[in-house]
Structure formats: C-alpha cells, structure tokens
C-alpha cells in the first residue's frame, strides 16, 4: 500500500518534530489553512446538496446525533473505571473522543478520492452535527444540568465556534450558489485543497510530535485508549452507516468521524465549562495518539471494517 502524499507530509512533520527541527508555521498561517479547509469542505458539501433534494435526511440526522451522544457516554465509564481517571478528566476526555476532527475527515475524503470511491453529499453536515453533542455530554456528566454552568456563554462558544460557522456558512453558500456559481472561486478553495491539506498536516505532525513528552507522563492506558477506542467507535460508525444505507464511501467517512477526536473546538469549550479538567491529558490523547493513528493506520482500517460489513 503506497501512502498518500498528504500522509507523507504528516510523517515528515512528525519526524522533523521528533528531531526537534524548528519548523512550526506561524499561527496566522495555520489559521489561514484551516479556514480554507473548513470553507472548502462546506462548499463542496453545499454544491452537492444543491443538486439533490434534501428529502428524507432527517432520520439520518437524528441517528447521527444519537451516536454523538452515545460515544462519549461509552467512553466515560471506560476512562473512569478502567483508566481510573478523575471524574472531570474522564468527562473531558470522553467529550474529546465523542466529537470530531476536521483534519481527519479531510484526509479521509482525499483517501476515498484517491481510490475513486464516492460518498454522500451531506457528510459535511454530519461533521458539523457531531461536533456538539459530546461537549454537552461531557459537561452534564460533571455538573448535571446545574445552573452554575454559564450556559449562555458556553452555547455561544459551542454553536458559534469558528469551525461550525465556517462549515455551515460554506454549506449554505455552496447550496445557494450551486456548482456554476462556485466555479469562479474554485481557484482558491478546490484546486489547492489537497496542497493546503498537505501543509496543514505538516504542521499537525509537528504539533503531534510536541505531545510526546506528555505522552510519556500519562502512560500506557492513554495510549491503549487512544488507539482502541477509535477502532471501537469506527465499528459503531460503520455499523450505523450500514443500517442507514449509506454508500461504502459515506460509511467509511461516518466511521472516521466516529473514530476521530477533537483537538480544537472541544479543548476550548472544556477550558470554559470544565476548568478543573486537565487539558494536557485530553490533548495528548487526541493529538498525540489518536490523530496520528487515524491518519496513518486508522482510515485504511476503517475502510476494511466497512468492506467487511458490506461483504465486499
């Protein structure tokens, strides 16, 4: 199996980071790249949505939301009772793993594209939808539905976070303008997409490498959890895709979404909602273990799992 060049960029970043080469991109550039990725994913989804009837999507959406609530509820007891994490840490890590990572999703779409496997147009919608429920679960697990929580401030942070607004905005613009309307802006959002993803992954590799120090600190349980729980989630996601009657491509994406762990939106929300949770613990897991695992081994594996479900 030959590696996709975007994955090679990640490996390059990882290697350079482990050798302590100083190559970090300026934060402004990292943000620029992620804004383009988010908008591009949204726009692509929107264009496809504009081609077909929105129709009977509601049951699927409900099912996916349910999965978004279920995954962190599954992760929590594992972390709490097997991992012996403090309650607040277990809840926070569960929220990270219940939510999703846009970078992982993007790599999965290029993986499918390279194999000429198509997928449902509305997958970016699931990407948006899956960001939120796990955050709520994480908070409620610790605080109950207490009044002390700054729900106003928090829902602002959660629902108006950069990634959700850009994904939804892209979806809307893509849907409103349609394929022909979007064509003139393809030169920024579609043609360089994979190159931008490559550069983004180079940086992610460097960041992941910088987690190694804390990885050592948190030890084997986190390592095991960060690899095994995503595989478990992917099975659930893959099974759900099968039940919902998604295509193989769509199912692989849903499995990848389930398996991916957030490292931007959720950390920010947890700092506000559960300040007593140890932020390094969750980041070490999602960035230092699960992200690399998913990018390099996970996605092809979830493809295999899906093929198994579909009996291909």
């Amino acid at each position, binding site marked *: 199996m030959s590696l996709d060049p975007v994955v090679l960029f990640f490996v390059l970043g990882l290697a350079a980071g482990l050798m302590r080469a100083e190559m970090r*991109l300026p934060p402004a550039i990292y943000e620029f790249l992620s804004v383009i990725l988010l908008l591009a994913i949204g726009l692509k989804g929107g264009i496809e949505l504009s081609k077909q009837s929105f129709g009977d999507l509601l049951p699927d959406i409900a099912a996916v939301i349910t999965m978004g609530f279920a995954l962190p509820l599954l992760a929590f007891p594992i972390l709490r009772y097997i991992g012996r994490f403090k309650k607040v840490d277990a809840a926070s890590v569960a929220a990270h793993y219940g939510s999703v990572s846009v970078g992982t999703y993007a790599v999965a779409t290029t993986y499918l594209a390279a194999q000429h496997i198509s997928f449902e147009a509305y997958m970016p919608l699931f990407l948006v939808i899956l960001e939120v429920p796990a955050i709520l679960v994480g908070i409620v697990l610790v605080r109950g539905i207490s009044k002390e929580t700054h729900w106003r401030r928090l829902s602002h942070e959660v629902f108006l976070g950069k990634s959700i607004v850009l994904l939804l905005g892209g979806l809307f613009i893509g849907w409103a303008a349609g394929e022909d309307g979007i064509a003139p802006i393809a030169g920024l959002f579609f043609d360089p997409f994979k190159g931008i993803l490559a550069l983004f992954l180079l940086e992610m590799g460097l960041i992941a490498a910088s987690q190694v120090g804390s990885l050592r600190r948190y030890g084997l349980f986190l390592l095991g959890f960060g690899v095994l729980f995503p595989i478990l989630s992917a099975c659930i996601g893959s099974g759900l895709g099968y039940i919902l009657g998604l295509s193989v491509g769509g199912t692989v994406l849903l499995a990848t979404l389930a398996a991916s762990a957030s490292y*931007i939106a959720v950390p*920010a929300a947890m*700092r*506000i909602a559960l300040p007593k949770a140890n932020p*390094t613990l969750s980041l070490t897991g999602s960035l230092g273990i699960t992200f690399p695992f998913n990018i390099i081994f996970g996605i092809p594996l979830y493809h295999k799992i899906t093929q198994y479900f579909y009996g291909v």
Partner: protein
Amino acid sequence: MGSKLMNTHPLQLITIITESVLEHTLIEDLDRLGARGYTITNARGKGHQGLRDAAWSSDSNIRVEVLCDPHLADVIAEYLTKTYYVDYAMMLYLSDVKVLRPEKFIGKDEAAESEE
C-alpha cells in the same frame, strides 16, 4: 532618583499573563470591576501548567495590562486570583508606575484627591 516631574501621579499597573481562551471573560470581568481600559499582546511561555505555545488559541497565552488606582488594582488582583488561579494557567503581578494625566485612568475626582 526617578522622574522629577511635578505632575506625575502614582498608579498601579496590573500585568496578567494567562490562557488566550480567557480573553473575553477577562475583558468582561475588567469592565465590570471598573477598569477604564486594558492593553493586550499575544505571548507564549512556560509555567506550572507547562509549555504554552500553540497554533490555536486554547493553548497559547495573552499578556494583559491594566493601569488603575491602587484600590481598584487590589480588587482586580484579588478577584482574578481567586477566580482563575486554581484552574487556569495564570500569572499576575502588580507594579508601581507614574502617569502624567491621571484623569485618563481614575476619573477626575480621584485624580484631584491623589494629588493632595
């Protein structure tokens, strides 16, 4: 030693170094407690909570300066320390500084008072 200007007025400068994720909450706090202004720069650093130098804001620092009268400085310092020190990466220090036109920072009445 020090400035010999007649019309300098002693004030307190609070410098807060903390997580970027707190920026908005902090600004609201400062407003509420009565600060007349603030200045923010982006920063990175290391402390008890480890290295803070990330590409995204939840893992990088800000450096906030607030110039105000000593009483308010105490109020702000106490409040922030109580509210955030335990759970957040935060460092806060106070320093004595002098300004030429205190009205700008503490209101006219207090300025006149502090002149006495």
